[in-house]
């Protein structure tokens, strides 16, 4: 199982640096910055990588639905059945996938769906959370 992060400019590269800080460096997670100075070589590198590793399960995280990075990656789905493209990447998603990758050879559709659902819940208005939250008193009992 390989994980590819790719975005317009440096979001994906920064995401990988943040992952390294929190959950460690992982060679199976690759990051690409696309279209800096109109350079399309990152897109080509990912296409080449996917073609050369078509037997391996590959998960690509892109930045934005409708953006050209995702549009390009989507095209790969035509010819690669073991490829997954997920857009709207966030840190909880990338982190959970990396953690999963570290102890598993591959990921099932159900597990991937669970991780996506979980990551969607990670967008939180903290002001409202603070208003609602009270210290969980059960926890304070040893």
């Amino acid at each position, binding site marked *: 199982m390989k994980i590819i992060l790719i975005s317009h400019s440096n979001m994906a590269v920064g995401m990988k640096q943040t992952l390294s*800080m*929190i*959950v*460690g*460096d992982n060679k199976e997670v690759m990051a690409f910055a696309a279209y800096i100075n109109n350079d399309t070589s990152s897109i080509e590198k990912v296409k080449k990588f996917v073609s050369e590793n078509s037997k391996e399960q590959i998960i690509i995280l892109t930045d934005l639905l409708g953006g050209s990075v995702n549009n390009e990656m989507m095209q790969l789905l035509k010819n690669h059945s073991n490829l997954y493209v997920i857009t709207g990447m966030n840190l909880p998603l990338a*982190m959970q996938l990396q*953690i999963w990758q570290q102890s598993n050879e591959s990921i099932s559709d159900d597990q991937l769906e669970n991780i996506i659902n979980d990551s969607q819940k990670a967008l939180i208005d*903290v002001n409202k*959370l*603070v208003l609602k*939250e*009270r*210290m*969980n008193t059960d*926890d*304070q009992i*040893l």
Partner: protein
Amino acid sequence: MIKFCRIDHRLLHGQVIFSWTKSEGIERIIVIDDTSANDEFKKMSLSLSKPTGVKLNIFSVDTAIENIDKIKKLPEKVMLIFGNTSSTLAFAKAYKDLKEINYGGIPAKEYSERFSNTISMDQQEIQDSKDLSALGIKLYMQQIPTTNREELNNKL
């Protein structure tokens, strides 16, 4: 059962929650820090950042020491997190059989000596650490489970 013990001025944060908790299979986290224990807002924000399914206590050093017998009897895998060396030393003296302490984060101050990217200690903190070492506790610096572990006892 105490599985993992760490000094980290940031207490609960990404590296602790997503890396150490998972690698050590932690079921309960006990934060031992006077500042946090006396600040309701801080306590609330710590409880918001705890990993799901993990229990959390936030104790002052005194409360933690009063509860040592209960802590020893806990069936869960427990992580202790201290905010600084002095609370660690006070607890360790009372607890008596702490085996290892992970040095995760101590910020630089004026006149502090730098031991790693994330560990800087002033004279008092170095003395606390020497005292911990004299109790027979292994001290080591390590940020996350996949990075290098560096012994600290011989560097003090």
